[in-house]
């Protein structure tokens, strides 16, 4: 599904954020990307989601080489992903409902059908009562959950979440991980970057893969059961 072959990423005017990374993620896997701050987790996720392009090496998504995609087809590749950004990237000029509506409207889904799906997504992150609130009036954790609702509303086949529980307390974090597990259960590939490496006891019964990064190098890729 997603294959990295000898990928190196160097940002202009910076040292290498990723060095010679190779791995494969199969359809329906649950993958944790771990590592210290600045190790390259977000960079790895951005390369997977076709937001950045590798400096050298190849990134294959569904056997398509991301570097060789035409800019016209890029949007359609990106629609396969549900993305939770580390900095949320919410839109502060519209309420929660319309924030979640954005991916649907981009996919051309409007009207009643859209309304149902948006409310279902908000309900999953327990924000249904904040439907009409503006994101700026939400607490940090509420904003993070809103970002998650937006990522899942379009029922993506790949879910990529960058530190989705950094601002959440244990109870909510468990909740969200439950949600991700549920997605994995129905065949969605779930990729999560996190700094508190697998400290969540709730996940012990789910088989998952760990990609551990250290200063841009893939140190170990192990499967925990």
């Amino acid at each position: 599904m997603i294959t990295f072959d000898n990928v190196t990423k160097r940002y202009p005017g910076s040292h290498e954020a990723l060095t010679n990374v190779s791995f494969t993620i199969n359809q329906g896997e649950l993958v944790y990307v771990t590592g210290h701050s600045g190790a390259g987790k977000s960079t790895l996720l951005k390369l997977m989601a076709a937001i950045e392009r590798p400096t050298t090496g190849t990134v294959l998504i569904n056997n398509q080489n991301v570097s060789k995609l035409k800019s016209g087809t890029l949007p359609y590749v990106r629609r396969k992903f549900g993305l939770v950004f580390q900095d949320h990237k919410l839109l502060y000029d519209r309420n929660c409902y319309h924030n979640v509506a954005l991916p649907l409207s981009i996919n051309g889904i409007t009207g009643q059908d859209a309304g149902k799906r948006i409310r279902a997504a908000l309900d999953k992150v327990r924000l249904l009562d904040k439907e009409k609130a503006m994101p700026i009036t939400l607490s940090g954790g509420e904003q993070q959950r809103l970002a998650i609702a937006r990522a899942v509303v379009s029922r993506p086949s790949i879910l990529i979440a960058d530190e989705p529980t950094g601002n959440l307390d244990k109870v909510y974090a468990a909740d969200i991980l439950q949600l991700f597990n549920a997605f994995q259960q129905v065949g969605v590939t779930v990729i999560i970057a996190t700094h508190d490496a697998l400290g969540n006891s709730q996940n012990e019964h789910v088989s998952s893969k760990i990609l551990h990064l250290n200063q841009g190098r893939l140190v170990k890729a192990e499967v925990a059961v």
Partner: protein
Amino acid sequence: MKSWLTQHSQALKLVLSRFKANLLNTLFICLAIGVTLALPSIMYTVLSSLSGLANNVKSESQISVFLSADQAVDTATAIKAALEKNAEVKSFKFVAKEDALKQLETATANNNVLSSLEQNPLPDAFFITPKNLDAASIESLKNDLAKLEGIEEVVVDGAWIKRLNYLILIGQKAMVIITSLLGFALVAVIGNTIRMQILTQQAEIEVSQLIGATKSFIRRPFLYLGALYGLIGGLFALFITYAVISVFNQSLNTLSREYQTDFSINLPDITSGSVVCLLSLVVGLVSAYFAVSKSLFKNIN
């Protein structure tokens, strides 16, 4: 087809709801566009009215034919008949020497000066408007007329035509300069406004691109916005043009009475009104397109 319609109505709805949310701001911007657009529109209206007047004056009389003094009345009649037959003559006017003297009295604004004249020094005259105004036709007409009997002199009023043409030329030159300056200002105003809108929407544009919006999807609302600004600005411009010219015409009326002429500037008709609106709509659309393309895709591959 249906999805195409949905997309467009969605974009339009978005723009209209934003219009409503910032109504005062929007009106302010449209007014600025209207003002900028009103000036060339006023200029054009005034100039086209003036050049209509100039055409009138121009065709009033270009060739004067003076008969030799002490001519019998039937000479004038013969010349009249000859002029009526000549295809090159559009119209002509006969002024008898008595009338000419009266006119001279009026022109010098002093009835007493010439009242002491014992003998009328002025000749009978024909004032002729030629059909074709180009130099060659006028020259050949002049030669034809000079051949007629009993004619003292044929004078072509060339200097006057030259001067008038020159004045109109200057007016047009001024209009070209002012219009291009203002056209530039217009593009700058609309373009800046759209860029401001883009700045406000920068986050939305970025996020939309990241989660798979196509370029045309992002561009669409801004194009509608530009077109709407242009259209409303154009309507404001028309309104301002109407108001300014109406006020102007009132002043002109008083002056015209003073001059015993009946001149007023024509208000723009429906055709030129729609041309103004259409033009400003297009300017708005084009400025929006460039502003979007410039601001939109600079950081994202």
